[in-house]
């Protein structure tokens, strides 16, 4: 209807009057937008502000008096600031600190001796002037008296303020700074390798007459079903110091960049493959015929026709891989050795040193490459124009013995690599005590005897995956429907689109850390969800929102926009149309969204590592924690449990899809 009014000759401005449907749709969209604001925008804001919280010693807040040797005559009160100005004992740089900083009070008294009978008094000049006597916290504006031997145990504590100091400190710390280089290096190398491998694989599947395509396609998707740290565990068994094939590395250590890159190629391969495969699946036969009639060599045709045709897919795949690698945390944790990367730094700062502020700073840094990659990718996507016109002739690969042999070799190698990694994990999980007792046993499945949460963690994961799939699908699909099928309200829709695309650019760990800052604030009315399963569901749904949203939009765009006006002219409320037409037509997409959410909820580590609690421990976290404690075989066992669960879910999904397709999608066939 809007389209019609827009085409009228200019006259009185027509205002769309909202009918009841319009209002209900706006309310729905508003609710889901509110969800995205609360689950994404506000936490990120909380994290950003946390990164600007700094700690420093404010010397003006402390006042001292010193007695003479009899302990009765006292000097005039003097602030530490004045003392420091006089003595210059603490340079301004050293007054900056972290939340755990200490500054010894005797610094300001060069004549101090703990044996002296001189006494000291101190007090705060404001209400917030914390200091420690030994380990006792004092914070008072009343004078406190100490003898010399006690006074030497006095430490000033830093106070909170706001500023960019954390960032200054970050960039002047060579350790932390080198992580940026390491992260970029790993991400670039892994991206190049993954894209090359995936391109060859996709080429073989789409452009050759190679046999076993179905099997290869299935094997290529396997890495999606396991947590990203599982390949790390397999690599330890293969190439670790007691590895089965250690000699292949010729003295190189698997712990470090080498291991991270191999593992990254494994877990990003299917993601890159899907994108490149889509790009290669569409081609115009006529271009190849033209190239042939121009006597272009195959090699030349490949570079002038095939690659340009797939270039958007390649760029997109590269950015997706890059983002996945640079934000991944599990793999460097397991096999990174001493190789520091950004994601590990966040973990070390938060879990190891309880330095939440610095964790927030690194998170903000980690957001930058992810956001840049995301923006570039969006630009590229916009430029992508249709390759197929109505006159195109779909490309049909011709049999070519040599090409097929080459393709088979390429895909076979990748398939051995993927299946090998997973098989090694299963084998390792069944070994009693690698490498000294190779008998088989189920002892590594006694998860209740290890760190990480035991079997309860596994059942929690299933619960989380089901809840994420159920709730997430409803929220995501409804949101996409409202934004797609609503009339007018351009600004609101634009804003909603932006919010729905944002999660793609936010690394899971960053989101999780942001949740600590936002939800673990007693002043927050939503505080009650902290530590429960609900916060894990919200975090997971939000983290994986974008892909589901895009899937839903694609499906919804296939439905003719005329349905709504027709239904409305028949005086049918939109929800009837939604239930009777939209949902059944989009069922395949809805099922795809739910299995996507299920599988990712089972495998994600990064989105939940900061916010799980003892009662909501998860299988993927258990893998991480068992490996951390050195229980590598049980970690592999739990990883395989995740694999089998996801594989089972995928099979169920395939069966259900087929049945539903038969029942509801008959209209697609004519």
């Amino acid at each position: 209807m809007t389209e019609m009014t827009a085409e009228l000759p200019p006259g009185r401005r027509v205002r769309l009057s909202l009918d009841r449907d319009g209002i209900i749709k706006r309310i729905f969209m508003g609710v889901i937008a509110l969800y995205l604001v609360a689950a994404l925008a506000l936490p990120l804001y909380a994290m950003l502000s946390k990164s600007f919280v700094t700690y420093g010693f404010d010397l003006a807040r402390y006042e001292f008096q010193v007695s003479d040797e009899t302990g009765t005559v006292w000097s005039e009160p003097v602030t530490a600031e004045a003392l420091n100005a006089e003595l210059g004992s603490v340079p301004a740089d050293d007054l900056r600190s972290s939340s755990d900083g200490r500054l010894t009070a005797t610094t300001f008294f060069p004549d101090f001796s703990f044996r002296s009978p001189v006494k000291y008094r101190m007090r705060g000049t404001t209400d917030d002037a914390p200091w420690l006597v030994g380990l006792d916290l004092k914070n008072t504006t009343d004078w406190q008296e100490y003898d010399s031997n006690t006074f030497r145990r006095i430490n000033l504590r830093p106070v909170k303020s706001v500023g960019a100091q954390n960032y200054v400190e970050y960039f002047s710390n060579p350790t932390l700074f080198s992580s940026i280089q390491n992260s970029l290096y790993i991400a670039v190398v892994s991206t190049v390798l993954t894209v090359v491998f995936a391109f060859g694989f996709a080429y073989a599947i789409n452009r050759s007459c190679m046999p076993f395509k179905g099997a290869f396609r299935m094997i290529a998707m396997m890495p999606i079903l396991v947590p990203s740290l599982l390949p790390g565990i397999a690599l330890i068994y293969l190439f670790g110091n007691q590895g089965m094939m250690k000699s292949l590395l010729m003295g190189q250590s698997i712990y470090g960049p080498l291991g991270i890159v191999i593992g990254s190629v494994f877990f990003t391969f299917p993601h890159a493959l899907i994108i490149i495969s889509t790009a290669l699946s569409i081609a115009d036969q006529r271009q190849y015929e033209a190239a042939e009639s121009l006597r272009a060599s195959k090699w030349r045709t490949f570079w002038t026709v095939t690659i340009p045709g797939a270039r958007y897919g390649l760029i997109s795949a590269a950015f997706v891989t890059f983002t996945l690698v640079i934000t991944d945390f599990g793999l460097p944790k397991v096999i990174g050795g001493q190789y520091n990367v950004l994601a590990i730094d966040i973990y070390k700062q938060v879990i190891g040193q309880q330095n939440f502020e610095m964790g927030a700073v690194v998170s903000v840094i980690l957001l930058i490459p992810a956001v840049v990659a995301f923006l570039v990718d969006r630009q590229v996507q916009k430029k992508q124009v249709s390759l197929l016109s109505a006159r195109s002739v779909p490309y049909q690969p011709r049999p070519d013995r040599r090409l097929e042999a080459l393709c088979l070799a390429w895909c076979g190698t990748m398939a051995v690599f993927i299946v090998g990694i997973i098989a090694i994990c299963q084998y390792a999980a069944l070994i009693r005590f690698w490498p000294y007792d190779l008998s088989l046993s189920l002892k590594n499945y006694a998860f209740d005897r290890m760190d990480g949460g035991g079997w309860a963690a596994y059942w929690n994961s299933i619960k989380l995956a089901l809840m994420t799939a159920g709730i997430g699908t409803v929220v995501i699909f409804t949101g996409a429907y409202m934004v797609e099928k609503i009339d007018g309200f351009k600004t609101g829709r634009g804003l909603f689109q932006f919010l729905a695309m944002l999660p793609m650019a936010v690394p899971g760990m960053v989101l999780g850390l942001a949740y600590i800052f936002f939800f673990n604030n007693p002043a927050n009315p939503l505080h009650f969800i902290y530590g429960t399963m609900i916060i894990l569901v919200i975090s997971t749904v939000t983290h994986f929102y974008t892909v589901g949203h895009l899937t839903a939009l694609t499906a919804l765009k296939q439905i003719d926009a005329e349905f709504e006006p027709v239904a409305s002219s028949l005086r049918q409320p939109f929800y009837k149309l939604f239930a009777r037409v939209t949902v059944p037509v989009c069922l395949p997409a809805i099922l795809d969204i739910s299995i996507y959410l299920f599988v990712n909820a089972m495998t994600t580590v990064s989105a939940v590592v900061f916010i799980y609690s003892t009662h909501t421990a998860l299988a993927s976290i258990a893998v991480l924690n068992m490996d951390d404690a050195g229980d590598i075989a049980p970690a592999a066992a739990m990883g395989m449990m995740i694999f089998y669960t996801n594989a089972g879910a995928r099979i169920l999904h395939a069966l259900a899809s087929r049945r539903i397709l038969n029942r509801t999608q008959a209209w697609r066939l004519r």
Partner: protein
Amino acid sequence: MIKAKTLVPALAAAAMLSGAAYAETELTVYTAVEAEDLARYAETFNQDHPDIKINWVRDSTGVITAKLLAEKNNPQADVVWGLAATSLLVLKTEGMLEPYAPSGLDALDPRFRDADNPPSWVGMDAWVAAICFNTVEGEKLGLTAPTSWADLTKPEYAGHVVMPNPASSGTGFLDVSSWLQMFGEEKGWEYMDALHANIGAYTHSGSKPCKMAAAGETVIGVSFAFRGAKSKAEGAPIDIIVPSEGIGWDMESTAIVAGTANAEAAQTLVDWSITPKAMEMYNVGYAVVAIPGIAKPVEFFPEGITEAMIDNDFEWAANNRSAILEEWTKRYDTKSEPKG
């Protein structure tokens, strides 16, 4: 869940007002005790106090400490039972612990309690540093077992030593702070410089080096005796070595979280946590407990641990932790090229 949590204190208060005599109290207890011991601890406690139900919240030392600090303004825990004293000291400096003198306090070894009166925390058992040495891999490589910390810097061990990163592991910090105390600041850092040359990897957790040694992934793991004894019991070919210079240690300890609504039950738990019965319970896994004379030898535990424990200055360690970690990170954490 949270709703229930806020309800419990309210109900408890209501029960007290109405004079109901026997209401079951639930205590939220934060702990870093090994997962497999938790059920046993709760059971033994409930033999004497069936009316107090323990809801465990368990995670590794670092995570639990981070969690407690994060909840500083709105504590969820009633009691901390089984957390490193070093961590409790951090909480104490934040004013998060409720001082309480449990009955039976005088029986404790004075090292196993907060020196203040009343103490903010009391110890349970000691958890001591040790070296795990894989005899099979050692023989393959022709290495002899080290007997002291100084031995670890011998060139022949290059790349074969794994120790926990003190910035993320309590055990790692315990090692570093003990070296600085035993050798003095300057010599301590010199020692770590030399040791660094031999380190194959710094791990995130304190038990991992010993498990790596147990699996032959490394030859020498700097870890703690408790872990070594467990791995040895599982059949790992390792020797657990107590270095001759002395060993750093920390203790698992107990404290009441300030602001708890269940003060009475919390005190009951802390009272019980230092009874001889509790000590016997800790003794199943730990060779040194807080009341002297109770502990029986634990299988596979090396001899002479009590004598080797250094005079650990926890206050010094806690107040210098941040500075030590900063220095350590600056010196050794930049190592970007890993070694085998």
